[in-house]
């Protein structure tokens, strides 16, 4: 039994660069599956990098961001901090960077959808806006002058 213990066994673990590369590859594979599922079922998907890449630094996700490239659309949401929203070069795959009010990065998410949910105006907000607009019109001094000829 003691002899068995002396058998030299070396477990080869990948180094950090290899682990980062493997993680990026895994995420890209998952994105391919999420896009395929979205096209066939309409089901959206989200990968949260703060959770998925929790053993890594935010900077180490930059090569993945570069591999996904930049698409045609970008937007910024402002409220409770801000969110930078960019479509990647793969339509339907969006990169969202969440920042808090102190400009600290909270998380990065990759969303698979027609467009990120955050961009969509919500019906209750639209109704409140409509009410404000109506009040604005009521409060104006007069109706716009109508030109006559």
């Amino acid at each position, binding site marked *: 039994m003691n002899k068995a213990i002396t058998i030299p066994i070396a477990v080869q673990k990948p180094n950090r660069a290899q682990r980062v590369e493997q993680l990026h590859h895994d995420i890209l594979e998952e994105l391919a599956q999420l896009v395929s599922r979205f096209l066939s079922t309409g089901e959206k998907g*989200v990968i949260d990098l703060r959770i998925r890449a929790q*053993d890594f630094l935010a900077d180490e996700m930059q090569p993945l961001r570069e591999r996904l490239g930049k698409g045609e659309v970008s937007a910024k949401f402002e*409220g*409770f901090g801000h969110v930078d929203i960019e479509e990647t070069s793969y339509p339907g795959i969006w990169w969202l960077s*969440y920042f808090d*009010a102190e400009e*600290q990065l909270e*998380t990065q998410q990759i969303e698979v959808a027609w467009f990120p949910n955050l961009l969509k105006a*919500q019906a209750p907000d639209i109704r409140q806006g409509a009410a404000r607009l109506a009040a604005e019109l009521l409060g104006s001094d007069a109706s716009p002058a109508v030109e006559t000829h």
Partner: protein
Amino acid sequence: MTDLEKTDSIDSPDFEFPAEPGTVGERLVNLGVSRRGFLKFCTALTSTMALEASMAPKLAYALTTSRPCIIYMSFQECTGCLESLVNSYGTTIENLILTSFSLDYQETLQAAAGTAAEAARNEAMTKNAGKYILVVDGSIPANAKSGYFVSAGESGVDRLNKAAANAAFVVAVGSCAAFGGLPGASPNPTGAVPVSSIIKNKTVVNVSGCPPIAEVITGVLAYYLTNNALPALDANKRPTMYYGKTVHSSCYREENERAGHVANFGDAAARAGGCLRPLGCKGPRTHAACATMRWNQGLSFPIQSGHGCIGCTEPGFWDFGGLYTKTSGGD
């Protein structure tokens, strides 16, 4: 419509947050916060607490419809856990703990004192019997007649038993409540024991650490709020979602050790990321989320700042031996 269907439809353009009276939802409506802003808030919150992204809409729904009652009681402790909870995070944690939940009793934070405070606690426990969450920090002298820790004329054991009797479950926050901590360290003059040694007929969740990471404390509460169930626990009653891995296995210095780069006190290797195990780092046998969630809004953690892990989330860590004594084993 079931609750699940309701939460699934929360991202529908037609969905209206219920905004029940007394909830965060009502407060947001009154403040004129948009639904989009609220969803952003919930997404960041779930991510910060290492909860799956799919839980964000569920959390949004839960925050707008309910406001669970929390009774937070302190025993033999230093208030470090509460400091961690309320001071370490700018906005979201305070929002969650102080507005999402109804913190009905906390001796340090509440304005009331004396009999008025005790009456408020009793009223909250009666009103929310079977539903309130009992959060405890500090360890408790096992002998009710020891004379150690008496508050409002009651022994610690009596106060804890009374408070836990009608709680939904108990969260033991900090290593004192979870494992005895400093009061329970040798020679343990007060005969201090952890909460789970006294409360046997109720689920006790240990959120250990000296102190625990604030997001871990609130993450457990948020998990319960969104799932109406507790997360999976390890053999030490700690949530595996936060305590499933050792600090060493997630540490950025771990692979440097494998490459032969280890640190000595004050040398260049220590500054260059060499593994701190030779300096007594307890990371290899300490289960915690410090290396992944980090502290101060994810800024850093002790090892990143150059000091080895002291193993504060493990049972009996004050009796491990010297902080700088090299440990064997672990991963």
